[in-house]
């Protein structure tokens, strides 16, 4: 299939680009037109600025915008600093190895599940306070603190940091070998620089250049996220995206004009966040240059190193503890306040949840499997096409900078759906879906998920594919194997682990999608994630615990299969072990 008639591989890049850019552009237009009053379906035929005027008169709008900007910038900055300094100070240590091993389970937990878990941990009636009550605090009943949904959005920022650190760490693991970090660090230390200083002065520039798009994606996500904001974020007023979704789902259909105008504002807010970020980059560069120019050795960096270790440990512990507390709640019977553990255990949460879970669970599985499968096949076709394009030489390709700039452009297209705020084109995608009859269908929902799944699958699979020793392909051709045969018999089996991992990544991304599910599923097609977030306002912690666990369990299972299957298939093959 991959090679028969080169047309399939030749068509793949165009199809991929279309799939990534098409929905973004269509969706953006579908948002832009209603924002200016043009929505024939609702009778809007004149172009007007009224809806923007109405938008700016909405009470508390500035507060909502401010919250979005603040949570986005603060969580991104903190995640990047903790990840970067942790790598700088602990590269090659045991702590580094431990985090590296934890990375798959940490990533598997969807944002919403981690947010639920965090809420159950830190709420006034949460596990943390129960552990120290009443012995230390004297509380006999939950205190009246606003910890979750706090007006500054600190809980939301914390939840975002805990989930973004593992993502940035994973991206870093992929680029560190290309930054020649190890020899540079050794060189820096032999010149008398501290660990962190060596990293910042010698490795950071090339490291940051390579993870920059991922950082911007994190920033865009954190600025426009809905599910985490619903669960942890401020409520008076909520962040901008939360209000937009409210207006969009309002029974009064004319509110959609307002929602669309707001989505355009969200795009501007996202742009502003990126501009501020560029400013922060400048400031950081000036600071680092000034330090370097003075020859500062910064050898006493113990405090910074400990802080980064604490941050990293806290992030990992938060995500893992979230799962534990979700698990306890899912089987909790009677659990009055200050008890640290339920007095009775009961399956009633599971019974209630499982009874209503069947249909969303099926939808989740079908959409996630198909979206991940299509993404993996398209990615493989694109990569194979790239390979045939630049038929490798016997050793390392000496291909010049023009190929590099081409692949940079490709990377930008890949990141586009991740950097443009979801909400600003998903509103429009919903219109397009309704017009084409794709709303609340499996095809429509899968397509919407695909836009976000495909980039992650591509990012996950392209490095192992391109890093594959091309001499094996050469050798196979020399043995008389056709490209197709070499692909099926040599390359794909040898890369089976990477391919399955990419599939698991895509599956996990799809399971975690909230906004596309709510908008394209239109409430009639629901997934575990959209149901879980919907249930959270009802406040039954036992049922939410079950949903959170299932939500995390699915991606975890996918990653476990991706790791176990090659081990089983190639049990006696040491050369394939990692």
């Amino acid at each position, binding site marked *: 299939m991959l090679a028969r008639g080169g047309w399939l591989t030749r068509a793949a890049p165009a199809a991929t680009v279309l799939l990534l850019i098409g929905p973004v552009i269509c969706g953006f237009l579908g948002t832009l037109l209603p924002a200016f009053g043009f929505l024939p379906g609702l009778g809007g035929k004149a172009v007007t600025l009224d809806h923007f005027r109405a938008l700016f008169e909405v009470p508390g709008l500035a507060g909502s915008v401010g919250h979005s900007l603040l949570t986005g910038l603060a969580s991104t900055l903190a995640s990047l600093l903790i990840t970067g300094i942790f790598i700088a100070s602990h590269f090659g240590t045991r702590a580094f190895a431990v985090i590296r091993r934890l990375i798959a389970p940490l990533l598997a937990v969807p944002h919403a599940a981690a947010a639920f878990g965090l809420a159950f941990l830190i709420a006034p009636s949460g596990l943390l306070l129960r552990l120290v009550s009443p012995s230390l605090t004297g509380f006999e009943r939950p205190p009246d603190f606003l910890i979750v949904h706090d007006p500054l959005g600190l809980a939301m920022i914390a939840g975002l940091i805990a989930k973004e650190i593992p993502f940035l760490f994973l991206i870093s693991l992929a680029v560190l070998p290309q930054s020649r970090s190890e020899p540079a660090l050794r060189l820096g230390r032999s010149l008398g620089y501290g660990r962190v200083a060596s990293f910042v002065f010698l490795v950071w520039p090339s490291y940051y250049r390579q993870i920059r798009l991922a950082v911007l994606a994190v920033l865009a996500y954190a600025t426009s996220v809905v599910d985490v904001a619903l669960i942890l974020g401020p409520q008076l007023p909520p962040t901008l995206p939360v209000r937009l979704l409210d207006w969009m789902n309002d029974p009064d259909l004319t509110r959609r004009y307002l929602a669309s105008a707001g989505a355009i504002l969200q795009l501007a807010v996202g742009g502003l966040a990126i501009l501020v970020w560029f400013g922060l980059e400048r400031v950081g560069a000036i600071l680092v240059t000034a330090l370097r120019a003075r020859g500062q050795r910064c050898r006493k960096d113990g405090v910074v190193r400990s802080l980064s270790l604490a941050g990293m440990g806290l992030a990992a512990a938060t995500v893992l503890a979230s799962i534990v507390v979700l698990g306890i709640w899912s089987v909790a019977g009677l659990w009055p306040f200050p008890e640290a553990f339920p007095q009775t255990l009961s399956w009633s949460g599971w019974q209630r949840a499982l009874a209503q879970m069947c249909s969303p669970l099926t939808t989740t599985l079908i959409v996630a499997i198909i979206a991940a499968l299509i993404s993996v096949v398209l990615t493989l076709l694109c990569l194979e096409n790239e390979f045939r394009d630049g038929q*490798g030489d*016997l050793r390392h390709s000496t291909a010049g900078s023009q190929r590099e700039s081409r692949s940079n452009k490709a990377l930008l297209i890949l990141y586009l759906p991740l950097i443009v705020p979801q909400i600003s084109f998903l509103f429009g995608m919903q219109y397009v879906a309704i017009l084409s009859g794709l709303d609340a269908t499996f095809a429509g929902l899968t397509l919407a998920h695909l836009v976000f799944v495909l980039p992650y699958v591509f990012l996950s699979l392209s490095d192992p594919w391109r890093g594959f020793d091309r001499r094996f392909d050469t050798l196979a051709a*020399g043995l*008389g194997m056709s490209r197709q045969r070499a692909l099926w018999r040599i390359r794909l089996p040898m890369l089976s682990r990477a391919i399955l991992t990419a599939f698991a990544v895509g599956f996990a991304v799809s399971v975690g999608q909230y906004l596309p599910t709510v908008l394209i599923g239109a409430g009639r097609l629901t997934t575990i994630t959209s149901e879980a977030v919907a249930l959270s306002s009802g406040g039954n912690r036992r049922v939410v615990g079950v949903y959170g666990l299932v939500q995390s369990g699915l991606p975890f299972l996918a990653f476990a299969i991706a790791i176990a299957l090659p081990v089983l298939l190639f049990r006696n093959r040491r*050369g394939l072990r990692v």
Partner: protein
Amino acid sequence: MADRSALILEDISIRLHGRRLIALAGRVEPGTVLTVMGPSGSGKSTLLAFIGGFLDPVFSAQGRVSSGAVVLTDLPAEERRAGILFQDPLLFPHLSVADNIAIAVPGAVRSPRQRRQMAMAALERVGLAGFGKRDPETLSGGQKARVALQRVLVSEPRLLLLDEPFSKLDATLRDQVREMVFAEARTAGLPMILVTHDAADAVAAGGPVHNVGAE
């Protein structure tokens, strides 16, 4: 089992950004070796890539390569039957030792049983009978080299391209493997092109030597 035709190189010239890396013409008789010597980075391996059909498009190449009456440069890589041995044995890590050889048996042999028997026979020839089911990773360096050689030989190549195949072996093993490769290829009547920076290889090959990129 092989065609036993000479390898004919006509006015080959390989350039990178206008700079000429290699210019070569000649004829390699069956069972003889043409050695191409040069320091690393001189582009000597691009000659093998050109003959095998895997040249990176950043290089521009001219000239014609034929094996007897067959013009190889008109064929896609997998139809040239240009067997190749690298520095590393590069046994396929997901296949058993026997399957590593069986996968190279030409497609004309359809029966899996027959392909397997041919692989077993090849292993027996080099004293590795009974190793068929093993994981290639469990073999010693010398054993891997023998399997790699048998793998390329059962594919019935028209010629053999040797890309510094001995440079990673330790001194005692190097002589043995070199002897074995040359002897087996001679028996099979294969013309060989050896790319190396080791003068001892050139001496052992005993054929003409073409120097590349020497200053």
